[in-house]
């Protein structure tokens, strides 16, 4: 009787309880001393696709130079999140845009200067700067990955 019960319980835990997918960090970790004084930021930059395709490397260099050298912070990762993606609405006369995603650790006081520099840079159409407490899932995924992982169509309608 009790044997049966444990057997069933064992089965349940095998089939019902699924181990959550293990989280693999995609960002390099820094010296703990540095991590103490900095926070993790996610910066999305929007470019004109024509400009971006011509000078992508220069744009990456510009970001690395600004965050890494001029502000003296730590760039962890720079990705092209989407290449010439169709916009939901026109922005500055453009129907498409290329997105750059920058992950970096920085001292909070440097973000003010960073945003100021971004606003002065005319090649950047729009930007979005977010702080994270820890690395979120999905770092390194591109727009296509998100679209490909799209779940089945909505339940109703």
């Amino acid at each position, binding site marked *: 009787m009790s044997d049966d019960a444990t057997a069933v319980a064992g089965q349940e835990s095998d089939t019902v309880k699924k181990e959550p997918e293990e989280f693999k960090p995609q960002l390099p970790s820094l010296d703990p001393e540095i991590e103490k004084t900095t926070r993790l930021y996610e910066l*999305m930059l*929007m470019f004109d696709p024509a400009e971006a395709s011509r000078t992508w490397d220069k744009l990456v260099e510009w970001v690395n130079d600004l965050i890494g050298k001029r502000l003296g912070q730590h760039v962890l990762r720079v990705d092209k*999140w989407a290449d010439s993606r169709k*916009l*939901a*609405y026109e*922005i500055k006369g453009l129907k498409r*845009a290329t*997105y750059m995603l920058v992950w970096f650790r920085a001292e909070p006081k440097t973000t003010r200067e960073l945003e100021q520099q971004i606003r002065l840079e005319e090649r950047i159409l*729009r930007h*979005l700067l*977010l702080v994270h407490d820890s690395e*979120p*899932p*999905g770092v390194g*995924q591109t*727009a296509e990955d*998100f*679209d490909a*992982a*799209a*779940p089945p169509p*909505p339940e109703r*309608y």
Partner: protein
Amino acid sequence: MSRDREYGPGGGGPGGGGGGGGKRRRRVRRIEFIDYKDVPTLRKFLSPNGKLHSRKRNSADAKTQNKVQAAVKRARFMGLLSYTN
């Protein structure tokens, strides 16, 4: 256990007591992290016109609804979702 229910008011849930038809607790959905870049997921919380569904319709608890709302607004700002349709 059953004695509690019989005698004391302590064990009663919402809407307990006479009259039948009590309030039913809603099942809510909690999402720990929602990404503003994950457009297909965000679309599930939006009407075809791009308006955010009510919390009731999303069956989201307050925290989740606020996270979804923030994510939708970010996605709109970056041109990933439309403000209107």
